């Protein structure tokens, strides 16, 4: 394809959590500063000529009108080109993709991709749970976020014999990883017994099968690969990406043991990058619920369909496993500030490929990392981004 190679030269985030004392604007500024500070040779913010902001749901803190102008003036970039990207849970990863295209096309020279989300300003009842009363007055009534994923758990258990212990193993692993991540919302480990004994949220999912509600912000800086050396000797390159949509209603799903949007987004990303699942060293995937990670690792091609639960139990996806999944702690432990989530996953991939992830560093063999989100009504949209350490790998010139 005729696109110019894009480099990630900086990435930063603020520690995720219940950040009651920080405004949306302060979180954005914090992530931006962290990204600027991460650039090895320094980064003059005045070179940034476009920004893409991922914020999924301003209504969660009472703001209907989050637009492109909300973030630049808050972080000291008033006046620059800025566009808000909203694409459900993959908003952050899609903002990254759009930012990469803005650089790959040659239109922009230096792009900021920033994800910011306030999840805890409103009460849970008025915030995330109020979704139960939105949408179609009958066919969506009662449809909170777990309702979009729990039916897949029920069916996966029915068809493949996946057990609640296997689901719990995802939470146990990701909390173990999160305990090593200074940016994680939760830095405590949990046991299988604790997961199984936690309160039922939406059967068959229990509390510790679910990611928390988290405030957070994350930012990355993109430049043409040809300019990367001005900023760092160790850039990370965009190798390819894919986006796919699926029907928005669960009634229209053809399968409840996989997420069709993920399968198709991954196929497109692998094709664009000329890579295969076996080339991937590490992946940050969408584990909003434990079942989601089991579906992900199957749908992304890392394990055979139906074997995701058993593979997790066997440690295949642990830090030292064949394919380490969610070294950051994932959404389950690190948190899921929706717009920030995908950008923060990119940051984790950046650190892992540069082998600066400290105690949670995985072994990098091929220099390939994969980042994935899936979400929206009916899990109807997925984004997969592929990153590489070697400019000769992947798509783009």
């Amino acid at each position, binding site marked *: 394809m005729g696109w110019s190679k894009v480099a990630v030269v900086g990435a930063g985030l603020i520690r995720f959590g219940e950040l009651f004392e920080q405004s949306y604007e302060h979180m954005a500024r914090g992530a931006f500063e962290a990204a600027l500070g991460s650039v090895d040779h320094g980064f003059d913010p005045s070179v940034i000529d476009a920004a893409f902001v991922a914020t999924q749901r301003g209504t969660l803190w009472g703001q209907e009108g989050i637009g492109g102008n909300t973030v630049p003036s808050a972080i000291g970039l008033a006046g620059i080109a800025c566009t808000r990207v909203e694409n459900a849970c993959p908003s952050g990863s899609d903002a990254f993709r759009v930012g990469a295209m803005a650089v790959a096309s040659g239109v922009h020279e230096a792009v900021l991709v920033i994800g910011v989300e306030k999840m805890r300003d409103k009460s849970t009842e008025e915030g995330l749970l109020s979704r139960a009363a939105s949408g179609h007055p009958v066919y969506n009534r009662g449809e909170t976020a777990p309702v979009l994923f729990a039916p897949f758990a029920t069916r996966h258990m029915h068809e493949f014999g996946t057990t609640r212990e296997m689901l719990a193993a995802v939470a146990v692993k990701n909390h173990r990883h999160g305990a090593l991540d200074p940016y994680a919302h939760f830095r405590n480990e949990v046991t299988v017994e604790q997961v199984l004994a936690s309160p039922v949220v939406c059967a068959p999912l229990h509390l510790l099968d679910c990611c928390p509600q988290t405030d957070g912000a994350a930012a990355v800086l993109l430049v043409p690969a040809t300019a990367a050396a001005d900023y760092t000797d160790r850039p990370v390159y965009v190798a390819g990406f894919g986006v796919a949509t699926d029907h928005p209603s669960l009634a229209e799903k053809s399968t*409840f043991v996989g997420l069709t949007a993920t399968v198709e987004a991954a196929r497109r990303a692998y094709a664009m990058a000329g890579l295969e699942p076996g080339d991937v060293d590490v992946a940050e995937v969408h584990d909003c619920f434990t079942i989601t990670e089991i579906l992900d690792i199957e749908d992304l091609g890392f394990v055979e369909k139906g074997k995701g639960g058993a593979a997790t139990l066997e440690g295949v996806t642990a830090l030292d496993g064949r394919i380490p999944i969610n070294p950051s702690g994932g959404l389950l432990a690190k948190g899921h500030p929706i717009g920030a989530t995908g950008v923060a996953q990119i940051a984790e991939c950046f650190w892992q490929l540069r082998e600066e992830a400290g105690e949670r560093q995985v072994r990098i063999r091929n220099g390939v990392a994969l980042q994935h989100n899936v979400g929206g009504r009916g899990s109807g949209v997925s984004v997969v981004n592929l990153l590489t350490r070697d400019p000769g790998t992947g798509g783009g010139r």
Partner: protein
Amino acid sequence: MSTVRVAGVGAALGSWRLDPREVRAAWGPASGTLEGGPADRTLAVAGADEDTLTLAARAADRALAATGIEPGDIDVLCWGTTRPPFAEGPSHAVLAAALGCSGRTGGLLCTGSAHAGMEAFLAGVDAVTAGSARWALVVASDAIVPGAGTALEARCGAGAAALVLGPRGPAGVGVRVTRSAPFLEQWRGDGEAATRDVYDPRLVRDVAVLPALADVAEHLRALEPTAWSLPDPDGRTAGALARRLRIDVPERAGTEHLVGDAGAAAPWLGALPALDAAGRVAVVGHGGGRTSGVLLSSEGPVPGAGPLGPLAAAGRPVRYPAVLRARHQLVPNAEPVPMGVPPGSAMHLRGAHEMLGLLGARCGDCGTIATPPSVHPTCPACGGTKLETVPLCRTGEVHTFVVNQTMPPPFEAPLPLLVVDLDDGARLMVQGTGDGGEVTVGARVELVLRRYALERGVPVYGYKATVVGA
């Protein structure tokens, strides 16, 4: 003048079972609840997602199915209920649409007292007699909200009965008689939420109700009925009436011990067991100072007739606080989350028929059925544009499901949500009735009309899946 026949009948009971001893225990001996009927009754009460309209629809569906008459063939729908779902609003039109009646269906809605069930029946008889209707569907239903701590609360049940009237059927409609007297018994003032009970039940029973009932029943006694359906709201009235008339009414001849006082539905629920065989059934109904009696002469079993025991046995035992919550008499101190699409908005206007009639859009190219039609301009499977609106099959199988435990008010947990594969191939995501305990992958389900929400005073109806045989 043509002869009016009863072609088929159907019944429905509130799906919750309440032990009235819980009501008495809650309010104590000084309350009126001790006057609320015999202690060995169990009450059929409306579940949180049921009301007089959903019970009416269920009974009417059963009567039509038993008779083999298509809803589109019903010329008039005569509905009697003490308290319709809207004090003012489209109650009759919503029921007609839910039953699948055509937009040309006539009829009326009788309300205001438990006598409404008799009034609706007599209106249906009149319509067929006058020739303005070939087939009339009569529905009598009630699920009132009784005042808390009253005798009425300790005896109040919920149920519905439906009768298909027309030119043929095993039972004929004979003599009818009505009496009226302006005395006060149970009532609800304008703007009041709960139905009040009379302050001296024995006074009203002995001085006002019994003489009126006796007057009507004496006319029917002359025709030598073989069975009686007599009002027995308190477990004493029917017995006292039988003694006064010197007629032999077997103990528990009525259905109150299975249902409680079902108001407008009571006389017809009481008649259903007797219509299962040849005979002459005297039906007496009373309410709001009015009493009516009618004699049905049956040459054989009326389709759909039979004892109510199996329906009562299918009910789910609940505790008293659940009933209070369902009747909105026990309300959490929290702001309920408003429906994102308010009932007055265009989406409800566009979606009324597809929600009440359970409609889908069938693709002319690949046969896939998508639901609801209003959001599917093209086939989601093949992109085809030749879509035909069709009624969905009402039975199917659970493909997968969840039980949601975490929702803000006004939702109540546990709430089952099911992906159902209907027998016509359509896939649907709907709520389940009950607590989800009986749902399994592969379970057979039936879709029934339920109230999804009571939003800004407006009942919003749709279909829910209920496990067959559970």
